[in-house]
């Protein structure tokens, strides 16, 4: 009996499972779903680079190459964003645009975790607008979690998986990033 799949009703994880079983064509649905998101993420993360389309294409190729390492019981988006993060970091290193610290003291000590529900609703929309306007003024260290949280809609745990950082450090970076932006805004007014 033929199994007819309604691909567009399927979750990312179900589609990834089909790709793992050899249904190569369905990988295109994942590219469609995440193409624009990753391009936006790359633009915010890498600022004004010309090779963003090539980098995003490379991310999908790496995702396809390594799709068998994906566990379908876990969420697909943090796994894909992790590949994108690595690809973009490598791109930065190649061009040596920004210094990347080897060791970050924020990851050393535990920090009290502020709940991400505090930024829900109207306040989150306002901060999102500010993030879009003032993002380029921030260090990559603070820029990336802000993009992932406010623009890409990932939660603390998912960002922690993408950046491979403690959840509390993600909270600290988001808080500091917002404070820095507030400072820039106050200075420019």
């Amino acid at each position: 009996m033929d199994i007819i799949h309604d691909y567009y009703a399927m979750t990312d994880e179900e589609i990834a499972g089909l790709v793992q079983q050899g249904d190569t064509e369905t990988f295109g649905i994942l590219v469609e779903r995440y193409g624009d998101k990753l391009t936006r993420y790359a633009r915010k993360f890498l600022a004004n680079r010309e090779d963003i389309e090539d980098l995003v294409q490379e991310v999908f190729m790496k995702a396809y190459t390594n799709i068998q390492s994906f566990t379908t019981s876990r969420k697909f988006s943090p796994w894909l964003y992790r590949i994108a993060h690595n690809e973009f970091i490598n791109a930065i290193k190649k061009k040596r645009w920004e210094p990347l610290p080897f060791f970050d003291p924020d990851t050393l000590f535990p920090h009290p975790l502020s709940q991400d529900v505090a930024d829900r609703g109207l306040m989150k929309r306002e901060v999102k607008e500010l993030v879009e306007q003032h993002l380029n003024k921030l260090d990559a260290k603070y820029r990336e979690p802000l993009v992932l949280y406010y623009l890409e809609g990932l939660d603390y745990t998912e960002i922690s998986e993408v950046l491979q950082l403690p959840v509390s450090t993600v909270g600290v970076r988001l808080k500091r990033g917002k404070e820095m932006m507030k400072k820039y805004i106050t200075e420019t007014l």
Partner: protein
Amino acid sequence: MTESLRDKVLSSIKNGKVRMRPRWHFILKTALAISGGIILTLALLYLVSFIFFVLRVNGVWFVPVFGFYGVRTFFVSLPWLLIITSLIFILILETLVRHYSFAYRQPLLYSILGILILVIIGGFVVAQAPFHKKLMIRAQENRLPVTGPFYREFGMHRFRDIHPGIIASTTDDGFILRTRHGEMLTIMMASETRLPFGYNFIEGDGVVVFGERDDDSVKARGIVEVTNEMYHTPFLKRGNPPMMRPSFPPF
């Protein structure tokens, strides 16, 4: 944009430019990482237990009971080369486990402390087992080809002011100590000699004497009795028959 991206990615897959790595590749990679982690952990346990072992056989472990000078001598006499090597191993292990969610979700301090506590407790437990003692005896008898020099270098280290050994005979103001190197040292006790666990020594007892050596005699700052069988190595067992336990201290 997304459609052209989709077409580009799919055409790269179809023309074989991009190939999916098989599942066994990742299973093998994970297996290698786990094996590496296990080997590194075992090496760390071995190293840390060896540190505890050499501290005990060299008598360094016991000197902090002799007050400020004892604590100072303890830190000066620590096998720093082995400790630094262990710390490097801990950093490598931390780097290895940092890629896994159970490690990176916690602050770095927690995972480093976790590894430290694990290897210190594990190393202490292994050091109590006869494992190192057996290897040490084999090394002394030149029957340990690879790690023999390692055991002889660290396990038979001579210190200027720490003298572990066995009481060969008692004298009016102390006793004659047979060291692990087969030397005979005259130990002189005085009223200021510290005896944290009292004086109840007889010939054949294992002791650690703390005090600076002058030729073949030592003016003891402190003495502590130890029940460490390593001081009774086959070489040192060839001693005089034990004397009667003295009924009172010799001062």
